[in-house]
């Protein structure tokens, strides 16, 4: 819902204004729990929220929605409780539970790339089917294969064309992890969207994508040739890398 539209319509209704204010307060609390997403795609799943923090947030949220003024007092001025030490005969080491993020960032990136007209559900179905086909062909956990294929296909640098006076020089510039992954997805998607009988086998995009990823892992794909070309150009122009 667009905020501007909401404001203009509901200004005449004070009750709705009050409800909207509470909703905005609630949203600001919920936003505060969102951990700053790292710029890179980490190899290990990172911790998003801890159970204690979530409990505190939900209590604050319920306090705000009931609308009393002193609702936040017990959260702010809560005395710190001493943890009760229970003596057990057997040594007990509680295991830390690390909560993974809701969606793998690499899959999220892939889905965002293939999504059209903002239809994320549709795109995520394709992504799921890709993983399904990968598992069906290899009988292994598909996410690891997906990640490996993209890492193998991703270029490490891009070649920027620069004009130094009248001369046009090529400067190799390193790419961040997100840029690299995106480039790999772009190349794979280009190959996969061509539905000629000679080039690609597979009736659906998902099937063709999975087959292309397996080809990348086996080492015979046009995507790898593209990567090699760019790397060769970068190698040839390695003198310009450190300039200016």
């Amino acid at each position, binding site marked *: 819902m667009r905020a501007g539209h909401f404001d203009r319509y509901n200004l005449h209704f004070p009750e709705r204004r009050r409800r909207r204010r509470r909703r905005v307060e609630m949203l600001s609390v919920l936003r505060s729990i969102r951990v700053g997403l790292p710029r890179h795609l980490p190899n290990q799943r990172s911790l998003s929220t801890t159970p204690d923090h979530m409990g505190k947030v939900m209590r604050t949220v319920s306090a705000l929605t009931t609308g009393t003024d002193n609702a936040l007092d017990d959260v702010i001025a809560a005395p710190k409780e001493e943890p009760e030490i229970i003596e057990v005969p057997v040594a007990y080491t509680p295991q830390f539970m690390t909560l993974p993020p809701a969606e793998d960032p690499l899959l999220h990136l892939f889905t965002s790339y293939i999504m059209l007209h903002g239809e994320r559900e549709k795109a995520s179905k394709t992504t799921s089917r890709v993983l399904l086909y990968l598992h069906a062909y290899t009988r292994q956990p598909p996410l690891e294969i997906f990640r490996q294929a993209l890492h193998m296909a991703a270029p*490490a640098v891009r070649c920027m064309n620069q004009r130094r006076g009248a001369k046009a020089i090529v400067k190799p510039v*390193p790419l961040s992890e997100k840029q690299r992954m995106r480039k790999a997805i772009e190349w794979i998607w280009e190959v996969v969207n061509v539905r000629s009988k000679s080039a690609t086998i597979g009736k659906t995009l998902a099937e063709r994508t999975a087959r292309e990823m397996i080809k990348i892992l086996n080492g015979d794909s046009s995507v790898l040739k593209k990567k090699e070309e760019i790397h*060769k150009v970068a190698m040839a122009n*390695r003198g310009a*890398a450190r300039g*200016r």
Partner: protein
Amino acid sequence: MHIAKLKVRPKKNPPVNLCARELTTMLSCWAASNDVMSTGACAEASSALFQCMRETPFKGKQHKPTINYHLARLRKSLK
């Protein structure tokens, strides 16, 4: 000498050199071993570059050079 309008075409700010050391290491490794796909000899060098790119913060957008502002301001004192 009277110059009516003292103005230069300022050079663009050069792009920032991120992880320059790791990049040159990797590129020279490629040249030495011809391992452009970074599978064998240059795997370490390329992974060092990737790690550096993960850690290095990007600098914000660079301002345009302000030389023309200063030239316009100081033009009065030149005459």
